[in-house]
Protein backbone atom coordinates (compact mmCIF):
# COMPACT_ATOMS: atom_id res chain seq x y z
CA UNK A 1 0.00 0.00 0.00
CA UNK A 2 1.35 3.38 -0.93
CA UNK A 3 -1.28 5.20 1.11
CA UNK A 4 -2.80 6.77 -1.96
CA UNK A 5 -6.22 5.37 -1.09
CA UNK A 6 -6.17 7.50 2.06
CA UNK A 7 -4.33 10.50 0.64
CA UNK A 8 -4.05 10.70 -3.17
CA UNK A 9 -1.64 13.63 -2.93
CA UNK A 10 1.20 11.42 -1.62
CA UNK A 11 1.42 10.00 -5.12
CA UNK A 12 2.76 12.64 -7.47
CA UNK A 13 1.99 11.67 -11.01
CA UNK A 14 4.49 13.20 -13.45
CA UNK A 15 2.30 16.20 -14.18
CA UNK A 16 4.09 19.51 -14.24
CA UNK A 17 1.24 21.90 -13.61
CA UNK A 18 2.84 23.86 -10.77
CA UNK A 19 5.54 23.93 -8.13
CA UNK A 20 4.04 22.05 -5.20
CA UNK A 21 4.81 22.38 -1.53
CA UNK A 22 3.22 20.96 1.61
CA UNK A 23 3.38 23.11 4.69
CA UNK A 24 2.31 23.14 8.36
CA UNK A 25 -0.33 25.66 9.51
CA UNK A 26 2.18 27.42 11.79
CA UNK A 27 4.48 28.31 8.88
CA UNK A 28 1.69 29.14 6.45
CA UNK A 29 1.70 32.91 6.73
CA UNK A 30 5.49 33.38 6.69
CA UNK A 31 5.76 31.11 3.63
CA UNK A 32 2.96 32.90 1.77
CA UNK A 33 4.49 36.26 2.65
CA UNK A 34 7.86 35.10 1.32
CA UNK A 35 6.23 33.86 -1.89
CA UNK A 36 4.44 37.16 -2.28
CA UNK A 37 7.70 39.04 -1.96
CA UNK A 38 9.11 36.63 -4.51
CA UNK A 39 6.63 37.91 -7.10
CA UNK A 40 3.64 35.59 -6.67
CA UNK A 41 1.33 38.57 -6.62
CA UNK A 42 -1.89 36.87 -7.66
CA UNK A 43 -3.83 34.49 -5.46
CA UNK A 44 -5.69 32.48 -8.06
CA UNK A 45 -7.70 30.27 -5.79
CA UNK A 46 -8.09 28.90 -2.34
CA UNK A 47 -10.02 25.71 -1.77
CA UNK A 48 -10.21 22.73 0.52
CA UNK A 49 -10.35 18.94 0.27
CA UNK A 50 -11.62 16.49 2.87
CA UNK A 51 -9.70 13.20 3.32
CA UNK A 52 -11.80 11.49 6.02
CA UNK A 53 -9.34 8.68 6.79
CA UNK A 54 -6.21 10.79 6.91
CA UNK A 55 -4.51 12.69 9.75
CA UNK A 56 -4.69 15.68 9.40
CA UNK A 57 -8.11 15.37 7.83
CA UNK A 58 -8.41 18.50 5.69
CA UNK A 59 -6.20 20.11 3.09
CA UNK A 60 -6.48 23.81 2.29
CA UNK A 61 -4.97 24.41 -1.12
CA UNK A 62 -3.56 27.78 -2.23
CA UNK A 63 -2.95 28.41 -5.93
CA UNK A 64 -0.58 31.29 -6.64
CA UNK A 65 0.54 32.86 -9.90
CA UNK A 66 3.63 34.95 -10.55
CA UNK A 67 2.25 38.10 -12.09
CA UNK A 68 3.57 41.64 -12.65
CA UNK A 69 1.46 44.40 -11.14
CA UNK A 70 2.01 46.87 -13.97
CA UNK A 71 0.81 46.90 -17.55
CA UNK A 72 2.52 44.16 -19.54
CA UNK A 73 2.44 42.66 -23.02
CA UNK A 74 2.01 38.92 -23.71
CA UNK A 75 5.79 38.63 -24.27
CA UNK A 76 6.53 40.21 -20.92
CA UNK A 77 4.12 37.80 -19.25
CA UNK A 78 5.65 34.78 -20.97
CA UNK A 79 4.80 31.61 -19.09
CA UNK A 80 4.19 32.73 -15.52
CA UNK A 81 4.98 30.26 -12.77
CA UNK A 82 2.29 28.57 -10.79
CA UNK A 83 2.70 27.60 -7.16
CA UNK A 84 0.51 25.24 -5.18
CA UNK A 85 0.68 25.25 -1.42
CA UNK A 86 -1.10 22.48 0.49
CA UNK A 87 -1.72 22.96 4.18
CA UNK A 88 -3.04 20.12 6.35
CA UNK A 89 -5.68 21.06 8.93
CA UNK A 90 -6.49 18.54 11.70
CA UNK A 91 -10.09 17.98 12.77
CA UNK A 92 -9.19 18.83 16.39
CA UNK A 93 -8.05 22.34 15.51
CA UNK A 94 -10.02 23.57 12.49
CA UNK A 95 -8.34 26.91 12.26
CA UNK A 96 -5.90 28.69 9.98
CA UNK A 97 -4.60 32.25 9.94
CA UNK A 98 -6.36 34.46 7.41
CA UNK A 99 -4.53 35.87 4.41
CA UNK A 100 -7.09 38.54 3.56
CA UNK A 101 -4.56 41.21 4.58
CA UNK A 102 -2.10 39.86 1.98
CA UNK A 103 -4.59 39.15 -0.81
CA UNK A 104 -7.93 40.89 -0.70
CA UNK A 105 -9.58 38.32 -2.92
CA UNK A 106 -9.01 35.63 -0.27
CA UNK A 107 -12.09 37.09 1.44
CA UNK A 108 -14.82 35.17 -0.35
CA UNK A 109 -12.70 32.09 -0.88
CA UNK A 110 -12.04 31.78 2.86
CA UNK A 111 -15.71 32.34 3.57
CA UNK A 112 -16.56 29.54 1.17
CA UNK A 113 -14.13 27.12 2.83
CA UNK A 114 -15.61 28.09 6.20
CA UNK A 115 -19.13 27.58 4.89
CA UNK A 116 -18.65 24.26 3.13
CA UNK A 117 -15.92 22.66 5.30
CA UNK A 118 -16.17 24.40 8.67
CA UNK A 119 -12.55 25.59 8.77
CA UNK A 120 -12.30 28.98 10.49
CA UNK A 121 -9.81 31.64 9.50
CA UNK A 122 -8.41 33.66 12.41
CA UNK A 123 -8.57 37.38 11.78
CA UNK A 124 -10.97 37.26 8.82
CA UNK A 125 -12.96 40.53 8.88
CA UNK A 126 -16.33 39.03 8.00
CA UNK A 127 -16.45 35.27 8.38
CA UNK A 128 -20.04 34.36 7.53
CA UNK A 129 -21.61 31.64 5.45
CA UNK A 130 -21.53 32.59 1.79
CA UNK A 131 -23.22 29.88 -0.28
CA UNK A 132 -25.55 28.22 2.23
CA UNK A 133 -28.28 30.08 4.15
CA UNK A 134 -27.05 31.74 7.36
CA UNK A 135 -28.96 29.38 9.67
CA UNK A 136 -27.79 26.20 7.97
CA UNK A 137 -26.29 23.48 10.13
CA UNK A 138 -23.39 21.35 8.99
CA UNK A 139 -20.81 21.76 6.26
CA UNK A 140 -22.01 20.21 3.00
CA UNK A 141 -18.73 19.47 1.22
CA UNK A 142 -17.44 17.27 4.02
CA UNK A 143 -17.40 13.64 2.98
CA UNK A 144 -19.59 12.55 5.93
CA UNK A 145 -22.35 15.02 4.99
CA UNK A 146 -25.18 13.17 3.22
CA UNK A 147 -25.55 13.96 -0.48
CA UNK A 148 -29.21 14.90 -0.24
CA UNK A 149 -28.82 16.76 3.05
CA UNK A 150 -30.30 16.01 6.45
CA UNK A 151 -33.93 14.90 6.17
CA UNK A 152 -35.10 17.30 8.87
CA UNK A 153 -34.08 20.27 6.77
CA UNK A 154 -36.56 19.54 4.04
CA UNK A 155 -39.96 21.14 3.97
CA UNK A 156 -42.96 18.83 4.41
CA UNK A 157 -44.68 17.68 1.26
CA UNK A 158 -48.37 18.43 0.71
CA UNK A 159 -50.68 15.58 1.79
CA UNK A 160 -51.55 14.48 -1.75
CA UNK A 161 -47.85 13.97 -2.53
CA UNK A 162 -47.43 11.75 0.51
CA UNK A 163 -50.47 9.75 -0.47
CA UNK A 164 -49.35 9.12 -4.02
CA UNK A 165 -45.88 8.23 -2.81
CA UNK A 166 -47.33 5.76 -0.36
CA UNK A 167 -49.34 4.13 -3.09
CA UNK A 168 -46.25 3.87 -5.25
CA UNK A 169 -44.33 2.33 -2.37
CA UNK A 170 -41.59 4.98 -2.25
CA UNK A 171 -40.94 7.00 0.89
CA UNK A 172 -42.01 10.62 0.55
CA UNK A 173 -38.93 12.76 0.80
CA UNK A 174 -38.45 14.61 4.03
CA UNK A 175 -39.83 11.73 6.09
CA UNK A 176 -37.96 9.09 7.96
CA UNK A 177 -38.23 5.40 7.21
CA UNK A 178 -39.81 4.82 10.64
CA UNK A 179 -42.54 7.34 9.95
CA UNK A 180 -43.22 5.59 6.68
CA UNK A 181 -43.42 2.20 8.39
CA UNK A 182 -45.90 3.63 10.88
CA UNK A 183 -47.97 5.08 8.10
CA UNK A 184 -47.92 1.80 6.19
CA UNK A 185 -48.96 -0.10 9.32
CA UNK A 186 -51.76 2.36 9.95
CA UNK A 187 -52.97 2.03 6.39
CA UNK A 188 -52.87 -1.75 6.54
CA UNK A 189 -54.84 -1.70 9.79
CA UNK A 190 -57.40 0.54 8.11
CA UNK A 191 -57.62 -1.81 5.14
CA UNK A 192 -58.15 -4.80 7.41
CA UNK A 193 -60.98 -3.00 9.20
CA UNK A 194 -62.62 -2.05 5.94
CA UNK A 195 -62.40 -5.53 4.45
CA UNK A 196 -65.47 -7.15 6.14
CA UNK A 197 -67.68 -4.28 4.90
CA UNK A 198 -66.74 -4.91 1.26
Amino acid at each position, binding site marked *: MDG*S*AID*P*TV*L*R*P*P*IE*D*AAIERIAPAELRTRLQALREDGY*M*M*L*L*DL*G*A*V*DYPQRVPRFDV*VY*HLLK*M*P*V*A*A*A*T*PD*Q*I*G*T*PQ*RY*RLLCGVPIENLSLPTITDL*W*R*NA*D*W*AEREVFDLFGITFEGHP*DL*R*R*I*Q*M*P*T*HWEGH*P*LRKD*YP*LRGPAKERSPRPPFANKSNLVAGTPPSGRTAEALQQQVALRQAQDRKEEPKA
Partner: protein
Amino acid sequence: MPLEPQGSQVLAQDGNAMVLSMGPQHPSTHGVLQIMLEIEGESVVKAEPEIGYLHTGIEKSAENLFWTQAQTVIERMDYLAPESNSLCYALAVEKLLGITDRIPERAQQIRVIVAELTRIASHCVWLGTHGIDLGALSIFFYCFDLRENILDVQEAAGGARMHPNYVRIGGLQADLPDGHVERLDALLKKFPTRMRELRAILQKNPIWQDRTIDVGTVTPEQAVAWGLTGPALRASGIAYDVRKAFPYSGYENYKFDVPTRTEGDAYARFVVRLDEMEQSMRIVQQARDAMKAGPIMIDDAKIAPPPKEAIALSMEALIHHFKVVSEGIRVPPGDVYQAIESPRGELGYYVVSDGNNKPFRVRTRPPSLYNLQALKGIAPGNLIADLVVMIGSLDPVFGEVDR
Protein backbone atom coordinates in the same frame (compact mmCIF):
# COMPACT_ATOMS: atom_id res chain seq x y z
CA MET B 1 -32.45 32.03 2.39
CA PRO B 2 -33.48 33.80 5.57
CA LEU B 3 -35.80 36.72 5.16
CA GLU B 4 -33.68 39.39 6.85
CA PRO B 5 -31.07 40.99 4.60
CA GLN B 6 -27.81 39.20 5.16
CA GLY B 7 -25.33 42.01 4.82
CA SER B 8 -27.10 44.48 7.09
CA GLN B 9 -24.99 43.63 10.11
CA VAL B 10 -21.73 44.55 8.40
CA LEU B 11 -22.87 47.97 7.23
CA ALA B 12 -22.63 50.94 9.56
CA GLN B 13 -25.89 52.85 9.88
CA ASP B 14 -24.84 56.28 10.99
CA GLY B 15 -25.01 59.83 9.70
CA ASN B 16 -26.78 60.35 6.43
CA ALA B 17 -25.97 56.92 5.09
CA MET B 18 -28.87 54.74 4.08
CA VAL B 19 -28.80 51.00 3.66
CA LEU B 20 -30.40 49.75 0.48
CA SER B 21 -30.78 46.18 -0.69
CA MET B 22 -30.38 45.92 -4.44
CA GLY B 23 -31.57 42.62 -5.79
CA PRO B 24 -31.71 39.65 -5.81
CA GLN B 25 -34.63 40.22 -8.17
CA HIS B 26 -33.34 43.45 -9.67
CA PRO B 27 -33.36 43.07 -13.45
CA SER B 28 -29.93 44.60 -13.92
CA THR B 29 -28.12 42.37 -11.47
CA HIS B 30 -27.84 39.57 -14.04
CA GLY B 31 -29.44 36.66 -12.34
CA VAL B 32 -29.60 36.46 -8.60
CA LEU B 33 -27.16 38.95 -7.15
CA GLN B 34 -28.02 40.88 -4.05
CA ILE B 35 -25.93 43.92 -3.16
CA MET B 36 -26.25 45.52 0.25
CA LEU B 37 -25.50 49.16 -0.41
CA GLU B 38 -24.67 51.92 1.96
CA ILE B 39 -25.55 55.10 0.11
CA GLU B 40 -25.31 58.80 0.74
CA GLY B 41 -27.69 60.48 -1.63
CA GLU B 42 -26.94 58.87 -4.97
CA SER B 43 -23.40 57.75 -4.29
CA VAL B 44 -22.27 54.41 -2.96
CA VAL B 45 -20.28 54.44 0.27
CA LYS B 46 -19.98 50.70 0.61
CA ALA B 47 -21.15 47.77 -1.46
CA GLU B 48 -21.34 44.25 -0.14
CA PRO B 49 -22.48 41.67 -2.72
CA GLU B 50 -24.38 38.74 -1.28
CA ILE B 51 -24.21 35.57 -3.32
CA GLY B 52 -25.41 32.02 -2.86
CA TYR B 53 -28.95 32.35 -4.20
CA LEU B 54 -28.14 29.93 -7.00
CA HIS B 55 -26.06 27.48 -5.00
CA THR B 56 -26.82 24.05 -6.42
CA GLY B 57 -24.02 21.98 -4.89
CA ILE B 58 -22.49 20.98 -8.22
CA GLU B 59 -19.13 20.19 -6.62
CA LYS B 60 -20.84 17.84 -4.17
CA SER B 61 -22.92 16.22 -6.92
CA ALA B 62 -19.80 15.67 -9.03
CA GLU B 63 -18.19 13.66 -6.21
CA ASN B 64 -21.09 11.23 -6.37
CA LEU B 65 -21.15 10.65 -10.11
CA PHE B 66 -18.87 8.71 -12.44
CA TRP B 67 -16.01 10.66 -14.03
CA THR B 68 -17.94 10.85 -17.29
CA GLN B 69 -21.28 11.64 -15.66
CA ALA B 70 -19.82 14.43 -13.54
CA GLN B 71 -19.12 16.34 -16.74
CA THR B 72 -22.86 16.72 -17.29
CA VAL B 73 -23.38 18.71 -14.09
CA ILE B 74 -20.07 20.53 -14.39
CA GLU B 75 -21.12 21.82 -17.79
CA ARG B 76 -24.03 23.59 -16.10
CA MET B 77 -21.82 25.81 -13.97
CA ASP B 78 -21.15 28.55 -16.48
CA TYR B 79 -24.35 28.16 -18.43
CA LEU B 80 -23.43 30.82 -20.99
CA ALA B 81 -20.26 29.02 -22.02
CA PRO B 82 -20.94 25.37 -21.22
CA GLU B 83 -18.21 24.01 -23.47
CA SER B 84 -15.51 25.90 -21.56
CA ASN B 85 -16.40 23.98 -18.42
CA SER B 86 -16.49 20.58 -20.03
CA LEU B 87 -13.30 21.25 -21.97
CA CYS B 88 -11.41 22.30 -18.84
CA TYR B 89 -12.68 19.35 -16.84
CA ALA B 90 -11.88 16.92 -19.67
CA LEU B 91 -8.35 18.34 -19.95
CA ALA B 92 -7.82 17.96 -16.21
CA VAL B 93 -8.96 14.33 -16.21
CA GLU B 94 -6.88 13.62 -19.32
CA LYS B 95 -3.82 14.98 -17.49
CA LEU B 96 -4.49 12.61 -14.61
CA LEU B 97 -4.97 9.73 -17.03
CA GLY B 98 -1.73 10.72 -18.77
CA ILE B 99 -3.31 10.78 -22.22
CA THR B 100 -2.92 14.49 -23.01
CA ASP B 101 -0.54 13.76 -25.91
CA ARG B 102 -2.73 11.03 -27.35
CA ILE B 103 -5.84 13.11 -28.08
CA PRO B 104 -6.38 12.98 -31.87
CA GLU B 105 -5.52 16.15 -33.76
CA ARG B 106 -8.94 16.52 -35.32
CA ALA B 107 -10.58 16.30 -31.90
CA GLN B 108 -8.31 19.08 -30.64
CA GLN B 109 -9.11 21.29 -33.63
CA ILE B 110 -12.84 20.79 -33.20
CA ARG B 111 -12.46 21.50 -29.48
CA VAL B 112 -10.83 24.81 -30.32
CA ILE B 113 -13.62 25.69 -32.74
CA VAL B 114 -16.27 24.79 -30.17
CA ALA B 115 -14.52 26.70 -27.38
CA GLU B 116 -14.09 29.84 -29.48
CA LEU B 117 -17.67 29.75 -30.78
CA THR B 118 -18.94 29.41 -27.23
CA ARG B 119 -16.80 32.42 -26.28
CA ILE B 120 -18.44 34.52 -28.98
CA ALA B 121 -21.90 33.29 -27.98
CA SER B 122 -21.18 34.16 -24.36
CA HIS B 123 -19.92 37.63 -25.24
CA CYS B 124 -23.09 38.11 -27.29
CA VAL B 125 -25.21 37.54 -24.19
CA TRP B 126 -22.96 39.84 -22.20
CA LEU B 127 -23.19 42.66 -24.73
CA GLY B 128 -26.93 42.24 -25.21
CA THR B 129 -27.73 42.37 -21.51
CA HIS B 130 -25.14 45.07 -20.85
CA GLY B 131 -26.82 47.14 -23.55
CA ILE B 132 -30.25 46.62 -21.99
CA ASP B 133 -28.88 47.72 -18.60
CA LEU B 134 -27.74 50.95 -20.16
CA GLY B 135 -30.91 51.52 -22.13
CA ALA B 136 -29.62 50.42 -25.54
CA LEU B 137 -32.38 47.95 -26.28
CA SER B 138 -31.82 47.22 -29.95
CA ILE B 139 -28.31 45.89 -29.43
CA PHE B 140 -29.86 42.92 -27.64
CA PHE B 141 -31.54 41.72 -30.84
CA TYR B 142 -28.38 42.06 -32.93
CA CYS B 143 -26.45 40.05 -30.34
CA PHE B 144 -29.01 37.35 -29.80
CA ASP B 145 -29.44 36.87 -33.53
CA LEU B 146 -25.73 36.12 -33.83
CA ARG B 147 -25.81 33.96 -30.71
CA GLU B 148 -28.71 31.97 -32.15
CA ASN B 149 -26.70 31.31 -35.33
CA ILE B 150 -23.83 30.02 -33.22
CA LEU B 151 -26.14 27.87 -31.10
CA ASP B 152 -27.56 26.37 -34.31
CA VAL B 153 -24.05 25.33 -35.33
CA GLN B 154 -23.46 23.98 -31.84
CA GLU B 155 -26.74 22.08 -31.92
CA ALA B 156 -25.89 20.51 -35.27
CA ALA B 157 -22.65 19.16 -33.84
CA GLY B 158 -23.57 18.25 -30.27
CA GLY B 159 -27.32 17.73 -30.48
CA ALA B 160 -28.37 20.40 -27.97
CA ARG B 161 -28.52 24.17 -27.97
CA MET B 162 -27.47 24.93 -24.44
CA HIS B 163 -25.57 22.01 -22.93
CA PRO B 164 -24.41 19.74 -25.73
CA ASN B 165 -21.82 17.84 -23.63
CA TYR B 166 -19.93 17.52 -26.89
CA VAL B 167 -16.39 17.51 -25.49
CA ARG B 168 -15.73 14.23 -23.74
CA ILE B 169 -12.84 12.78 -21.78
CA GLY B 170 -10.54 11.44 -24.49
CA GLY B 171 -11.95 13.39 -27.42
CA LEU B 172 -15.40 14.25 -28.65
CA GLN B 173 -18.81 12.66 -28.46
CA ALA B 174 -19.14 12.34 -32.26
CA ASP B 175 -17.64 13.65 -35.44
CA LEU B 176 -19.06 16.75 -37.09
CA PRO B 177 -22.17 16.02 -39.17
CA ASP B 178 -22.25 16.32 -42.96
CA GLY B 179 -22.39 19.88 -44.18
CA HIS B 180 -20.97 21.28 -40.97
CA VAL B 181 -18.10 23.08 -42.64
CA GLU B 182 -20.62 24.86 -44.87
CA ARG B 183 -22.55 25.93 -41.78
CA LEU B 184 -19.34 27.25 -40.26
CA ASP B 185 -18.54 29.10 -43.49
CA ALA B 186 -21.94 30.78 -43.49
CA LEU B 187 -21.30 31.92 -39.93
CA LEU B 188 -17.80 33.12 -40.76
CA LYS B 189 -19.25 35.08 -43.66
CA LYS B 190 -21.95 36.73 -41.58
CA PHE B 191 -19.75 37.54 -38.60
CA PRO B 192 -17.70 40.52 -39.90
CA THR B 193 -20.84 42.33 -41.04
CA ARG B 194 -22.49 41.81 -37.70
CA MET B 195 -19.38 42.99 -35.86
CA ARG B 196 -19.31 46.15 -37.99
CA GLU B 197 -22.92 46.77 -37.01
CA LEU B 198 -22.23 46.25 -33.33
CA ARG B 199 -19.30 48.63 -33.43
CA ALA B 200 -21.29 51.17 -35.46
CA ILE B 201 -24.12 51.14 -32.93
CA LEU B 202 -22.03 51.40 -29.78
CA GLN B 203 -18.34 52.05 -30.06
CA LYS B 204 -18.51 55.65 -31.24
CA ASN B 205 -21.90 56.29 -29.67
CA PRO B 206 -21.57 59.37 -27.40
CA ILE B 207 -24.29 58.18 -25.01
CA TRP B 208 -22.61 54.80 -24.63
CA GLN B 209 -19.24 56.47 -24.12
CA ASP B 210 -20.70 58.86 -21.53
CA ARG B 211 -22.06 55.95 -19.56
CA THR B 212 -18.97 53.75 -19.67
CA ILE B 213 -15.79 55.86 -19.95
CA ASP B 214 -14.10 56.40 -16.57
CA VAL B 215 -16.68 54.23 -14.84
CA GLY B 216 -15.45 51.41 -12.61
CA THR B 217 -11.80 52.06 -13.28
CA VAL B 218 -9.48 49.27 -12.15
CA THR B 219 -5.74 49.91 -11.97
CA PRO B 220 -3.35 47.03 -12.76
CA GLU B 221 -2.41 46.81 -9.06
CA GLN B 222 -6.06 46.54 -8.06
CA ALA B 223 -6.75 44.00 -10.79
CA VAL B 224 -3.99 41.71 -9.54
CA ALA B 225 -4.92 42.25 -5.89
CA TRP B 226 -8.52 41.24 -6.58
CA GLY B 227 -7.49 38.29 -8.72
CA LEU B 228 -9.21 39.55 -11.86
CA THR B 229 -8.62 37.47 -14.97
CA GLY B 230 -9.82 37.48 -18.54
CA PRO B 231 -11.08 40.62 -20.29
CA ALA B 232 -11.31 42.48 -16.97
CA LEU B 233 -7.58 42.01 -16.35
CA ARG B 234 -6.61 42.71 -19.95
CA ALA B 235 -8.61 45.96 -19.96
CA SER B 236 -6.28 47.09 -17.15
CA GLY B 237 -3.25 46.52 -19.34
CA ILE B 238 -2.02 43.10 -18.24
CA ALA B 239 -2.04 40.79 -21.23
CA TYR B 240 -2.41 37.53 -19.33
CA ASP B 241 -4.26 35.01 -21.44
CA VAL B 242 -4.17 31.32 -20.50
CA ARG B 243 -4.29 30.42 -24.19
CA LYS B 244 -0.93 32.16 -24.67
CA ALA B 245 0.66 31.56 -21.27
CA PHE B 246 -0.26 27.88 -20.84
CA PRO B 247 -1.40 26.67 -24.27
CA TYR B 248 -3.78 23.71 -24.34
CA SER B 249 -5.60 21.86 -27.13
CA GLY B 250 -3.04 23.15 -29.63
CA TYR B 251 -3.62 26.87 -29.16
CA GLU B 252 0.10 27.40 -29.79
CA ASN B 253 -0.55 26.54 -33.46
CA TYR B 254 -2.91 29.43 -34.11
CA LYS B 255 -2.09 33.05 -34.77
CA PHE B 256 -4.10 35.45 -32.66
CA ASP B 257 -3.54 38.64 -30.69
CA VAL B 258 -4.37 39.31 -27.08
CA PRO B 259 -6.36 42.57 -27.14
CA THR B 260 -5.50 44.88 -24.27
CA ARG B 261 -6.38 48.40 -23.16
CA THR B 262 -4.75 50.43 -20.43
CA GLU B 263 -7.69 52.53 -19.18
CA GLY B 264 -9.24 49.79 -17.07
CA ASP B 265 -12.74 51.28 -17.19
CA ALA B 266 -16.03 49.78 -18.34
CA TYR B 267 -15.47 51.10 -21.87
CA ALA B 268 -12.06 49.42 -22.04
CA ARG B 269 -13.59 46.11 -20.98
CA PHE B 270 -16.26 46.58 -23.66
CA VAL B 271 -13.68 47.21 -26.39
CA VAL B 272 -11.47 44.34 -25.24
CA ARG B 273 -14.39 41.92 -25.44
CA LEU B 274 -15.39 43.13 -28.91
CA ASP B 275 -11.78 42.73 -30.12
CA GLU B 276 -11.66 39.34 -28.49
CA MET B 277 -14.70 38.19 -30.47
CA GLU B 278 -12.88 39.06 -33.70
CA GLN B 279 -9.77 37.20 -32.57
CA SER B 280 -11.93 34.19 -31.72
CA MET B 281 -13.36 34.17 -35.23
CA ARG B 282 -9.80 34.34 -36.56
CA ILE B 283 -8.94 31.22 -34.59
CA VAL B 284 -12.09 29.45 -35.79
CA GLN B 285 -11.13 30.25 -39.40
CA GLN B 286 -7.62 28.83 -38.91
CA ALA B 287 -8.85 25.70 -37.16
CA ARG B 288 -11.49 25.18 -39.87
CA ASP B 289 -8.82 25.41 -42.59
CA ALA B 290 -6.44 23.08 -40.74
CA MET B 291 -9.02 20.37 -40.13
CA LYS B 292 -8.35 17.01 -41.77
CA ALA B 293 -10.29 13.79 -41.60
CA GLY B 294 -9.30 11.49 -38.79
CA PRO B 295 -10.40 9.93 -35.52
CA ILE B 296 -12.14 12.13 -32.94
CA MET B 297 -11.79 9.88 -29.92
CA ILE B 298 -8.81 8.27 -28.27
CA ASP B 299 -8.37 4.62 -29.26
CA ASP B 300 -8.35 3.17 -25.75
CA ALA B 301 -11.27 0.98 -24.75
CA LYS B 302 -10.52 1.51 -21.04
CA ILE B 303 -11.27 5.23 -21.38
CA ALA B 304 -13.61 5.68 -24.32
CA PRO B 305 -16.39 3.25 -25.19
CA PRO B 306 -15.78 1.59 -28.58
CA PRO B 307 -17.81 2.89 -31.53
CA LYS B 308 -21.30 1.53 -32.03
CA GLU B 309 -20.37 -0.33 -35.24
CA ALA B 310 -17.69 -2.32 -33.43
CA ILE B 311 -20.12 -3.48 -30.78
CA ALA B 312 -22.20 -5.41 -33.28
CA LEU B 313 -19.15 -7.30 -34.51
CA SER B 314 -16.83 -7.82 -31.56
CA MET B 315 -17.58 -9.45 -28.22
CA GLU B 316 -14.61 -7.66 -26.66
CA ALA B 317 -15.90 -4.28 -27.77
CA LEU B 318 -19.30 -5.10 -26.31
CA ILE B 319 -17.73 -6.00 -22.95
CA HIS B 320 -15.65 -2.83 -22.93
CA HIS B 321 -18.69 -0.75 -23.77
CA PHE B 322 -20.65 -2.39 -20.98
CA LYS B 323 -17.84 -1.85 -18.47
CA VAL B 324 -17.29 1.81 -19.38
CA VAL B 325 -21.00 2.61 -19.21
CA SER B 326 -22.02 0.58 -16.17
CA GLU B 327 -18.88 0.84 -14.06
CA GLY B 328 -17.30 4.03 -15.34
CA ILE B 329 -13.67 4.66 -16.13
CA ARG B 330 -11.00 4.57 -13.45
CA VAL B 331 -8.52 7.40 -13.07
CA PRO B 332 -5.10 6.94 -11.40
CA PRO B 333 -4.71 8.65 -8.01
CA GLY B 334 -3.24 12.12 -7.84
CA ASP B 335 -4.21 15.76 -7.97
CA VAL B 336 -3.97 18.22 -10.81
CA TYR B 337 -4.75 21.85 -11.52
CA GLN B 338 -5.85 22.64 -15.06
CA ALA B 339 -6.82 26.07 -16.30
CA ILE B 340 -8.28 27.36 -19.54
CA GLU B 341 -9.29 30.78 -20.78
CA SER B 342 -13.05 30.86 -20.43
CA PRO B 343 -14.99 33.89 -21.73
CA ARG B 344 -14.77 35.36 -18.23
CA GLY B 345 -11.17 34.59 -17.40
CA GLU B 346 -9.04 31.82 -15.98
CA LEU B 347 -11.33 28.89 -15.31
CA GLY B 348 -9.48 26.28 -13.30
CA TYR B 349 -10.26 22.84 -11.98
CA TYR B 350 -8.33 21.32 -9.11
CA VAL B 351 -9.25 17.66 -9.50
CA VAL B 352 -8.29 14.98 -6.99
CA SER B 353 -8.63 11.28 -7.79
CA ASP B 354 -8.24 8.42 -5.34
CA GLY B 355 -8.10 5.83 -8.11
CA ASN B 356 -11.82 5.16 -8.11
CA ASN B 357 -14.51 5.52 -10.74
CA LYS B 358 -15.76 8.79 -9.23
CA PRO B 359 -13.89 12.07 -8.76
CA PHE B 360 -12.74 12.50 -5.17
CA ARG B 361 -12.93 16.27 -5.32
CA VAL B 362 -13.55 18.76 -8.11
CA ARG B 363 -12.71 22.26 -6.93
CA THR B 364 -13.55 24.99 -9.41
CA ARG B 365 -11.69 28.25 -9.72
CA PRO B 366 -14.64 30.28 -10.98
CA PRO B 367 -13.49 33.45 -12.75
CA SER B 368 -16.85 35.13 -12.16
CA LEU B 369 -16.55 34.78 -8.38
CA TYR B 370 -13.29 36.68 -8.24
CA ASN B 371 -14.32 39.22 -10.87
CA LEU B 372 -17.54 39.96 -9.00
CA GLN B 373 -15.74 40.22 -5.67
CA ALA B 374 -13.76 43.17 -7.07
CA LEU B 375 -17.02 45.13 -7.00
CA LYS B 376 -16.38 45.67 -3.29
CA GLY B 377 -13.24 47.56 -4.21
CA ILE B 378 -14.37 49.52 -7.26
CA ALA B 379 -17.97 50.42 -6.42
CA PRO B 380 -17.48 52.85 -3.47
CA GLY B 381 -17.47 56.48 -4.53
CA ASN B 382 -19.57 55.91 -7.64
CA LEU B 383 -23.22 56.56 -8.39
CA ILE B 384 -25.82 53.81 -8.09
CA ALA B 385 -26.56 54.17 -11.80
CA ASP B 386 -22.90 53.45 -12.52
CA LEU B 387 -22.98 50.38 -10.31
CA VAL B 388 -25.22 48.78 -12.93
CA VAL B 389 -22.57 49.53 -15.57
CA MET B 390 -19.85 47.99 -13.40
CA ILE B 391 -21.78 44.77 -12.78
CA GLY B 392 -22.49 44.48 -16.48
CA SER B 393 -18.91 45.11 -17.50
CA LEU B 394 -17.56 42.49 -15.07
CA ASP B 395 -19.90 39.95 -16.69
CA PRO B 396 -20.65 37.61 -13.78
CA VAL B 397 -22.54 34.37 -14.42
CA PHE B 398 -24.26 33.14 -11.32
CA GLY B 399 -24.31 29.50 -12.16
CA GLU B 400 -20.56 29.75 -11.80
CA VAL B 401 -20.36 32.17 -8.87
CA ASP B 402 -22.62 30.02 -6.70
CA ARG B 403 -22.11 26.60 -8.30
